[in-house]
């Protein structure tokens, strides 16, 4: 009570600082926004069908990024480490599923065990078991990495852990590129199920018959998009539930808020951190399988750029925030697909990072990030 009255009586309120030349920046931003709107609007009016097609491919990309971004945002939120190896865990997920499908034919095991089973059911159960197996491998890998490489460095300077992360990333990429492990080449990925595609035109949704082209004014999409979308949204809901409702989620939030205090409250911090890595890796593995299914070509270095984009997406949405990662990933996917389609393919990274810089300048903690005080 006392301090409040004192400050009121002295009346030393800071005058609201109005920065000079602010209008220049606003005009500049408006100009950039106008150019972007012009490009988007012009293409939307000239070719709405192509535009919609790009949006759909952007959605597919964005939902995969969202799966990877979750791991980044959770790990960064808790240990403040840019886990560069996360993109390679994604790669391992894709490769694991490749070997499961190609070498072990795991995707048809229900048919082998129960010969009378319905074909659709076989594919569904087979694919799900491939995905779960790949996720398990990724979890094991990530927990090992965390124990071996990051845990001993928890009290060291942050850069040490970061360099280690880069080292682990290099190791996974090049160890995978050895001929007896995976291979340095691009491998065609065999999908565990058939692709079905549909097209939408003014008269409704139609099935595309194999060998026939859809009409000119139609937008096509495939079951892969639907699978990726549904999975990504389910994962999102699951994580929200995990973080908000379960004991582990509360512990995770506590650790990310204040590690020493969380330890004093009887939380096993090491266990929580390992669990976070495991969850992130599981979804990265899931993302890896879906990415391989969608783009059907895998390589040991495939995880680098998607990993980086996903991290950018996490930063864009506000790092540490799960819905933020989701929204950021969707924005990144759209930005990439639309740039590829409307401007030029090589500029997609440039546009992605430019968006990041602009968003961070306007909202330094990202779209969903809570404002933080750097130094109290």
């Amino acid at each position, binding site marked *: 009570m006392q301090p409040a009255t004192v400050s009121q009586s002295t009346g030393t309120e800071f005058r609201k600082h109005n920065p000079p030349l602010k209008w*220049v920046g606003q005009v500049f931003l408006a100009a950039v926004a106008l150019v972007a709107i012009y490009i988007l609007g012009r293409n939307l009016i000239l070719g709405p069908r192509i535009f919609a097609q790009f949006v759909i491919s952007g959605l597919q990309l964005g939902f995969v990024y969202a799966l990877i971004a979750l791991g980044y945002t959770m790990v960064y939120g808790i240990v403040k480490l840019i886990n560069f190896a996360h993109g390679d865990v994604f790669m391992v997920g894709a490769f694991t599923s490749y070997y499961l499908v190609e070498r072990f034919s795991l995707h048809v095991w229900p048919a082998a065990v129960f010969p009378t089973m319905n074909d659709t059911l076989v594919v569904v159960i087979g694919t799900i078991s491939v995905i779960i197996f790949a996720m398990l491998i990724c979890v094991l890998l990530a927990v090992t990495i965390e124990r071996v490489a990051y845990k001993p460095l928890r009290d060291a300077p942050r850069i040490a852990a970061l360099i*280690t992360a880069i080292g682990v990333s290099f190791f996974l990429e090049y160890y995978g590129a*050895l001929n007896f492990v995976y291979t340095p080449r691009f491998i065609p990925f065999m999908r565990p199920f058939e692709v079905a595609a549909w097209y939408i035109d003014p008269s409704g949704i139609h099935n595309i018959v194999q060998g026939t082209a859809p009409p000119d004014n139609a937008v096509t999409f495939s079951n892969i998009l639907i699978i990726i979308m549904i999975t990504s949204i389910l994962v999102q809901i699951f994580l929200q539930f995990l973080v908000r409702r379960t004991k582990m989620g509360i512990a995770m939030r506590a650790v990310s808020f204040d590690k020493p205090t969380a330890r004093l409250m009887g939380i096993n911090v090491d266990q929580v951190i390992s669990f976070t890595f495991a969850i992130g890796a599981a979804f990265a593995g899931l993302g890896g399988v879906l990415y391989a299914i969608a783009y059907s070509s895998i390589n040991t270095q495939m995880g680098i750029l998607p990993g980086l984009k996903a991290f950018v997406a996490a*930063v864009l949405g506000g790092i540490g925030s799960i819905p933020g990662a989701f929204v950021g990933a969707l924005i990144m996917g759209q930005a990439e697909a639309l740039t590829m389609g409307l401007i030029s393919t090589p500029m997609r990274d440039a546009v992605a*990072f430019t968006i990041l*810089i602009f968003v961070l300048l306007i909202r330094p903690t990202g779209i969903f990030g809570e404002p933080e005080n750097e130094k109290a």
Partner: protein
Amino acid sequence: MELGFLVGSIVKIGAILAYLYGLLWVLGHKKWWVKIVGIAAAFTVIQLGLTVVIGGNTLLNDFDSGLLFQAASMTMVALGLNLIYGFNGQFSLGQWGFYGIGAYAAADVTFRWTHGDSRGLIVLGVGAILGGLVLLGINKWLSRYRGVPVMSAFAFYLVGSILVGIVAVGIGNAVDPSIAPLLGSQAEPGPLTQGAWMQIVYFLAVIFAGVFAAEISFLLGIPVLSLGSDYFGIATLGFTIVVNTLMVNSDTILPFPEMKGGRGMIGIPKLTTWFWAFFFMVLVIIIMRNIIHSSTGRTILSVREDETAAKAMGIDIANTKLLAFVIGSLFAGIGGGVYAHYIGFLSPKTFDFLPGFNPMIIVVFGGLGSMTGTIAASFAWIFFLEGMLRVLLSQFGTDAPTWRFVLYPIAILLLMLLKPQGLLGKVEWGFLKAPIVKAREIFSKPVETTSGQ
């Protein structure tokens, strides 16, 4: 056989470290003539190794001399990064991009010059000088207003640099016809493409390329440095990726058909002799040391240690960060120019963002905030990697490059686990030590008193 390579690499690294220790000791000697003789001797030792032929081979074979040149340019890049990250605490992953910009800009100038086109040098030179003046002028003008928003400042700088670019290209197109006849063509070199002229053009190209990289870093730094540390790292990493993308598409998106996009730029005149590499390296070392041990350097250090306290002491945080970033990129640009003219071939693959982590790894290995550590680590790191490759080649054949990158991360991991502060910590050798100012010298000066007391 493998053991021979291994022992050989270790001996080489030891010799190089002894050489660097000697060089730094000589540079830091008090008597000026010892300095000059010593520097000349340090230069001559390697030069003799490169030229003296014994039994049909030079003392230092092509492989080792190549590593020396690479290490010299890497030293500049890593020193620049150490200024940005080690001394100023800004986690930058953009150093490799500036290195690439310097390399491509310098290479383009001399390439065009030898192909009868003087516009490269004129545009880059005018752009670098005029651009620097304009950027500084805008900076001076903006500093009259307090607290100009980042976005507004950036808009001014951007418009200024675009205008400068237009003017520079205009001047280049206007002046070129009068110089071009003197250049001849590639088949028949004109008077200006031979001997000393070429050396001058090379020198200017490298310096201007460095300044150009510094100006780009200024433009990038204005918006990006105001982000937090990790965000800054990601944004600069993005910059490296964007630069690399532009290199891959330099003949389609950018109007530089001679850079040949993803196929790589060939036919760059190999003008970097050991003299130039040594000259630029020592120049960068001297500039770096003098910055660090000056009041500017202490300002830079104070920003790393505690921004709030530094601000309370009246230090302009934003400008200090920008200064360190720009100088660091200048070094990277110069290193790039030296590298391009040694290797004679530039491929965008070299400037991919994955090797872009190398300067950061070198700086952390050498010890953050240790100039000696950075210099020693640059040399040791390159010799270590290549020595390892030789050892592995005899063992694994064509898989060796991959095996190298399997073992190399393990080495990184072990080093980080065992010695997270870096190899040399804060040790400095000879020249790079903080100058010892004796107490007597300070107190013997008459204390200036303000009038009116």
